[in-house]
């Protein structure tokens, strides 16, 4: 196995390179789940699922908490931050577009005024 501790960038890269792990993140996006739930859903042994979750945990994409004998997994803060970042990027794009659109519209407004004056003359 590769060591995933070079940097968080490499960690995320490796963590997301696997289809099961991407599936686990998608599943956790719908709500928290125990390792047992995840193992069942992905037709895997508990040990196999623990390894996958471990890789996701190291990359900061998932956090786990053990209560009694059950280990519950949830999306890590990085993943949630990504969602917020997505919305923010979208907002910045549209804001920038609309600021330039304002300029085009101002020009049209000025032109209409001038044309209106000419028409009345």
């Amino acid at each position, binding site marked *: 196995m590769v060591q995933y501790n070079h940097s968080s960038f490499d960690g995320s890269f490796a963590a997301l390179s696997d289809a099961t792990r991407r599936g686990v993140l998608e599943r956790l996006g719908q709500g928290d789940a125990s390792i047992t739930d995840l193992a069942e859903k992905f037709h895997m042994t508990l040990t196999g699922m623990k390894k996958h979750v471990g890789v996701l945990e190291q990359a900061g994409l998932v956090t786990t908490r053990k209560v009694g004998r059950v280990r519950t997994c949830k999306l890590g803060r990085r993943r949630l931050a990504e969602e917020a970042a997505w*919305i923010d*990027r979208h907002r910045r794009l549209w804001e*920038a577009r*609309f600021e*330039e659109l*304002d300029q*085009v*519209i101002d020009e*049209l*407004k000025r032109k209409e005024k001038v044309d209106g004056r000419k028409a009345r003359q």
Partner: protein
Amino acid sequence: MDARQDNELTPVKNLTAVGRKSECEIIVTRTFDAPARLVFQAWTKPELFKRWWLPKSLGVSLLSYEADIRTGGGYRLELDIPGHGSMAFFGKYLEVTPHSRIVWTNEESEDGAVTTVTLEEKSGKTLLVLQELYSSKEALERAGGSENGLPEQFEQLDELLLSLGGA
């Protein structure tokens, strides 16, 4: 009272609000200080449209643009994206109703959204509501890598994070 307050205030910048309406839907709203007729014109005349669609801050340049902006018409934009090369975006106009509604598709990828813009005029100002409807939650998340790409979006990590669920 209101008029007095208006005089005292410096003009407030119109705010662009973005929110997720559902798992597959994004909604963007913005008010323009102009009648709907002018907003519609700036959106549907290709020579005006291309002046604002790619804001300078995006750092992307337009290689070519063709558009037939009417119901049933189509468009094709080719962009030069630094570090990414040229990328084409194309689709159809499902509806173009003067001064009130523009609906188009993005067909360059399976993840392309259907975008609906509605214009509502009130006392000389226009409220623009833009909705992007994606085929799935995953398509919406992956869409970060489309022409909406601000430069940092093309970083490898971002692409991977946005492609979650693309198994």
